């Protein structure tokens, strides 16, 4: 038997034709007897009728021209005006895109630098006669040839390569660090804006719900802070080992984990903004183990419940 309190819940399904025959008949039966519910359902049908009748909106003629211009700019500068792909595949994650080629390039550069450094430190070929050297007679040295001012061509060329590699490496590192910093800032800005939007809504929430919500946010903050500490430790260790020129803020796995936390928090805040307080359990993500810092905290929470 359908009652007035069921009408609101079932009205959408009814007007969409999704109730089975038995429930639809019961629904109609109630409406025959209840003028208020009949009125309510009629209003919904009127609204949906109006919505479905809304005309298509024609874009201005200049839009195609603007799109073409936008494509041209995007090709020139790279499409960096991207918002975070909150719901998209993580294959567009900027750190993952940079991580493997960055690592490979770094290894090549370091290996090259190391071998060139070794070559640099060893005496020039013209200063020593190598066994089996076909040009040994030409390589006979004089004191002048051992000086740097008169370094053999291949050593000078190696120095030039070393310099250009260093410049390239420095430029690459700078660019990479800038990308990472920009990504960090974008995540944090988005989180800040979402929290601000929710602050207004939360004034109408119950104290219990607000408390649960705050606990959840605190959990995200703790997880993010933990990964930030790991990154800071990695950078410090890197400096100790490799000197101040090595800036290891990339640390792919640690940074991925940090961004996982940011993304989880953004998704959580976005759902709260869309769903509102009714029917939204901020602890559902905890119970489901959907936590940006991995499952450990989620398992702990599950254990506590």
């Amino acid at each position, binding site marked *: 038997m359908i009652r007035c309190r069921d009408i*609101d819940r079932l009205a*959408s*399904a*009814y*007007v*969409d034709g999704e109730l089975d025959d038995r429930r*639809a008949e019961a629904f*109609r039966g109630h*409406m*025959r007897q209840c003028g208020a519910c*009949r*009125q309510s*359902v*009629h*209003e*919904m*049908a*009127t*609204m*949906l*009728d*109006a*919505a*479905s*009748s*809304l*005309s*298509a*909106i*024609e*874009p*201005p003629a200049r*839009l*195609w021209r*603007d*799109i073409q211009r*936008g*494509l041209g700019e*995007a090709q020139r500068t790279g*499409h960096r*005006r991207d*918002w*975070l*792909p*909150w*719901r*998209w595949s993580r294959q567009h994650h900027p750190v993952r895109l940079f991580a493997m080629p960055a690592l490979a390039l770094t290894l090549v550069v370091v290996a090259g630098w190391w071998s060139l450094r070794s070559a640099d430190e060893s005496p020039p070929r013209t200063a020593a006669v190598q066994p089996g050297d076909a040009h040994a007679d030409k390589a006979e040295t004089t004191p002048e040839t051992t000086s740097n001012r008169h370094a053999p061509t291949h050593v000078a060329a190696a120095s030039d390569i070393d310099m250009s590699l260093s410049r390239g490496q420095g430029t690459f590192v700078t660019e990479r660090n800038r990308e990472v910093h920009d990504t960090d800032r974008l995540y944090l800005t*988005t989180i800040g*804006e*979402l929290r*601000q*939007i929710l602050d*207004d809504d939360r004034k109408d929430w119950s104290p219990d719900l607000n408390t649960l919500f705050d606990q959840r946010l605190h959990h995200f903050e703790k997880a993010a802070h933990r990964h930030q500490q790991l990154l800071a430790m990695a950078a410090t260790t890197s400096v100790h080992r490799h000197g101040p020129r090595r800036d290891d803020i990339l640390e792919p796995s640690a940074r991925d984990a940090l961004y996982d936390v940011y993304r989880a928090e953004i998704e959580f805040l*976005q759902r709260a*903004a*869309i*769903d*509102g307080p*009714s*029917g939204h359990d901020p602890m559902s993500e905890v119970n489901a183990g959907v936590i940006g810092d991995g499952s450990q905290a989620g398992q702990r929470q599950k254990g506590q419940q």
Partner: protein
Amino acid sequence: MPDSTDPAKVDERTVNTALAPADRPEFRNPRSSKRGFDTEAALIAACQQGDHAAMEALYHQFKRRVFGLVTRIVGAGDAEEVAQDVFVRVFRGLPKFRGDSALGTWIYRLSVNAALTHATKRGRRRHVGDEALQYIPAPDGPERDPRLAQRLERALLKLPAGYRAVLVLHDIEGLSHEECARIMGCRVGTSKSQLHKARAKMRVLLGPELSAGRAH
């Protein structure tokens, strides 16, 4: 309009016999047919190869849907910017489009994501002025109340962005719950629940107009 005296006629949406999205005129684009893009796959392939005519054909095929969707989510003031961004993303993303979903679903998803992100970044619209109706044409059909349609457009912009998106997709664009869920990236049940809440809020916003509309 539904007959208010007979509850049996206040029914499954018999009033909505709108064409399914695939049958709407804008899908049958004469420009795409003329240049040999008879199938969606051919059109995509041509766009992926950088065929400018194909790209323009694709734009014309989807421009109303994209523009209508973003206008109703972000408002008329920002619609052009967001629509431009959507299409740039479409054309830049086409080389990677694998066809896991229909092209229209993919484009809708891009549009919804772009519009929701834009709406979230700009914050909630507290005031909707007349600029919101800049692009919104007068509704079709003399038998329907044009004032209700305009008020509906205004009320739509007062909903939270997520509610707006699902209501536009399902009730205005005519997509199924399954399509809406795919576009919004959620379960079908969640999409239905969102839609129900969106409709409930709209009824609250439009209450007096809906009651008055009964007389028409």
